[in-house]
């Protein structure tokens, strides 16, 4: 019984992806004269060379972190979707610590990462506080905070931390003691291990601690939580702070491992992709791991396709939206599922 359900659940996923791909293929038909090659690159690109494979893994790191941050707040039905701004501000925090903290090996790196988490939660604190104190919609305020973060950080970095000897608008280079190591000559971001570990930890937090139990209860019915004697306001507040720390850390990891300076002149967009990752994972931190890998795979596949064949990588955005839409619209196989269950249930008795 359980098994048939699982099989159906999986079949549904495969069919949905299949349909999305088919539609994507049709799109390709119109945008290139070699649709087959382009499509093949899109699907298998990340697996064709080691370099591409590591590129795909590296891309999944920030997605996993922001997806994780958002799955936490979504669990409590809090819509603080400011992961983008938190990541940006967290990256700024990492830069401050990296450039100013004494260069003691390990300690420097750890402080830098903690600094990014701290700055991330400071950024999440504002919407959380407004919500708790004045019932202001955290959805609106967290979105606004994204832009404030963007302009504020750029202003500070470009005016006070800019490395004038570098050819671009970037900050001074971080000292080596604040580097997060990259592995192999293809530069695998070792933050991947942090992200995976953190996802597992957060999964345990949500499903295996009393704090997580309360988050889940409040996410389903806040009134019931209050009635049962939970401090709903304080839990909703702290979950936002925690989520901000994770998002901030995403920024810290990205800078200390991949760039070693502050390099962004525009919002990198991981915070928004994180929303997709969280939805796809159904807000389950454990599932954030495969979900982020999946999205990163699509992204890199599309980049490779774009680089090699000249098809606009924007196509991937269309594809991605399609998949999310189809996968979240669960109704597709519902009918088949219902029939199978009915049969099983009647047989069993």
């Amino acid at each position: 019984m359980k098994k048939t359900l699982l099989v159906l659940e999986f079949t549904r996923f495969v069919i949905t992806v299949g349909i999305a791909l088919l539609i994507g293929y049709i799109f390709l038909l119109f945008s290139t004269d070699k649709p087959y090659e382009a499509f093949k690159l899109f699907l298998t690109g990340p697996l064709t060379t080691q370099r591409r494979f590591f590129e795909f893994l590296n891309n999944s790191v920030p997605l996993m972190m922001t997806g994780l941050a958002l799955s936490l707040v979504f669990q409590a039905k809090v819509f603080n979707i400011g992961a983008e701004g938190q990541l940006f501000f967290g990256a700024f925090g990492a830069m401050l610590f990296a450039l100013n903290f004494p260069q003691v090996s390990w300690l420097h790196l750890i402080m830098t990462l903690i600094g990014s988490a701290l700055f991330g939660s400071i950024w999440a604190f504002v919407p959380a506080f407004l919500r708790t104190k004045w019932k202001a919609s955290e959805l609106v305020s967290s979105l606004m905070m994204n832009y404030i973060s963007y302009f504020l950080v750029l202003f500070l970095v470009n005016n006070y931390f800019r490395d004038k000897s570098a050819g671009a608008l970037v900050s001074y280079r971080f000292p080596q003691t604040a580097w997060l190591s990259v592995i192999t000559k293809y530069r695998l971001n070792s933050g991947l291990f942090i992200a995976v570990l953190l996802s597992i930890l957060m999964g345990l937090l949500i499903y295996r601690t009393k704090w997580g139990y309360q988050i889940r209860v409040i996410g389903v019915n806040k009134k019931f939580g209050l009635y049962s004697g939970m401090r709903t306001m304080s839990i909703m507040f702290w979950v936002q702070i925690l989520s901000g720390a994770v998002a901030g850390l995403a920024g810290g990891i990205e800078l200390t491992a991949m760039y070693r300076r502050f390099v962004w002149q525009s919002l990198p967009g991981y915070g928004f992709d994180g929303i997709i990752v969280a939805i796809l994972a159904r807000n389950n931190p454990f599932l954030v791991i495969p979900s982020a890998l999946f999205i990163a795979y699509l992204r890199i596949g599309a980049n490779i396709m774009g680089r090699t064949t000249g098809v606009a990588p924007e196509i991937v955005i269309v594809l991605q939206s399609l998949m999310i839409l189809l996968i979240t619209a669960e109704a597709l196989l519902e009918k088949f599922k219902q029939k199978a269950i009915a049969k099983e249930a009647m047989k069993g008795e």
Partner: protein
Amino acid sequence: MKAIEAVNITKVYPNGVVANRGVNLSIEQGEVHAIVGENGAGKTTLMKIFFGIERPTSGELRVFEKPVHISSPKEAISLGIGMVHQHFMLVPSFTVAENIMLGIEPKKGFFSVDFKKMENVITEYAKRLNFEVPIWEKVLDLPVGVKQRIEILKALVRGARILILDEPSSVLTPQEVNDLFDVLRRLVQDGLTVIFITHKLNEVKQIANRITIMRNAQVVGTYENREVTETDIVELMIGRKFEYDIKRERREPGEVLLTVKDVNYFREDGAHIIKNLSFSLRAGEILAIAGLEGNGQKEFVEILTGLREKAEGKILLNGTNILGAHPKKIRQMGISHIPEDRIEVGCALDLPISENLISDRFHTKPFSGRLIYRKRQVLEFGKKMMKEFDVRAKSPTTIVRMLSGGNMQKVVVAREMTNSARIVIANQPTHGIDVASSEFIRKKLIQMRDDGKAVLLISTDLQEILQIADRILVLYKGEIVAHLKNENITETDLGYYMLGAKRQSDEQIKESMKV
């Protein structure tokens, strides 16, 4: 002529629960047909199939002797079927008229609603039924009895020839039930057909022409009213012998546990909802608050349990004023609460039964250590509770949304009656629960009293109050109008006070409370 027939209907829910198994039912036109059965027997499911909310897995439906497929409430309505749900579906901020005509408003020109015509239509229907409804008032704070009439009008205006009522009487007072029955009789005289679900068997005997009994997803049989007694019905429902045997021995109550002093409450719009409420609750007694719905009970219970803010006065528990305290503190100080609204307040519908059962004690042993939440222990506990309180579901991991109304209520009751609180606030504790389980819960309440706990029972079910309460307060328009010992009083006596036709003097009430 047959109004509606179910032929060999089977319904299997997506999670594999068989709610109807080969059900055959045939309702004659112009009869009141009662459907009874234990919680989870499949009554609501069958009605949802008639009304197009659920599709049968197999089987056939016939309406006025024609085979039909009903795939939406819209189709059901066009076939002449109307349904009043157990949980009303009205828009609180709309007026009565707007609610009744929602979606079928008579138009004047292209955009504007023809209010005159709207009023005419409604008054005409209302007159035929001898109803009184405040047409231009907002539905918001109307008493349940009135809300129900609105629901019935809503169905009739849409041309219902067959009216389905799912537990219409479970929160009505006896007077309101009588009114409802008058209406139903009049409808039947007009040739309408009424299908009526209830757990109150005296009502069934009073109003039904025929009775269908369901057990465990199947129909046990359909009987003429005179063929069966109440006891027969119960025994057919549960499939074994059953005796009403609630005994309540007289007991001297112990020390005062809770003192309510001069509580006043004004709603945002300025209405004076609770007026100078004062009383005390002792260990080892069941104190009932009787009253028609909408006389301040709901607000008072919310104030008492910390769910409503901004009341004046004092509520003393162990010498501490708990008025305005956080529910967490109130619970810690030993107050447990069965809320009136199980769906909005009493459950997390999308969590499993087991996790709903521990929401007030998840942080204690054995469910949690310092940090860790022990899933296995929670499941074990869930299993145990389901057995003790006879919650019918596949397993403790079933989410509460998939339970029948009565089984949801049992989950709430199971939680609130098994914590270590010394005071239980029980607001309609047996709401929607079947005969046998209601007996069980009432016995349990009496046993808690005997163990030295205090029970504050808020109920519109006067039989329940007279059966188990030691003392009774009657609330009318937010005021205590009577304080009675439960000795030789009848439903009629209480009725006078509840309707405001009679009241004790303030001195009398004060005097009688002193003892």
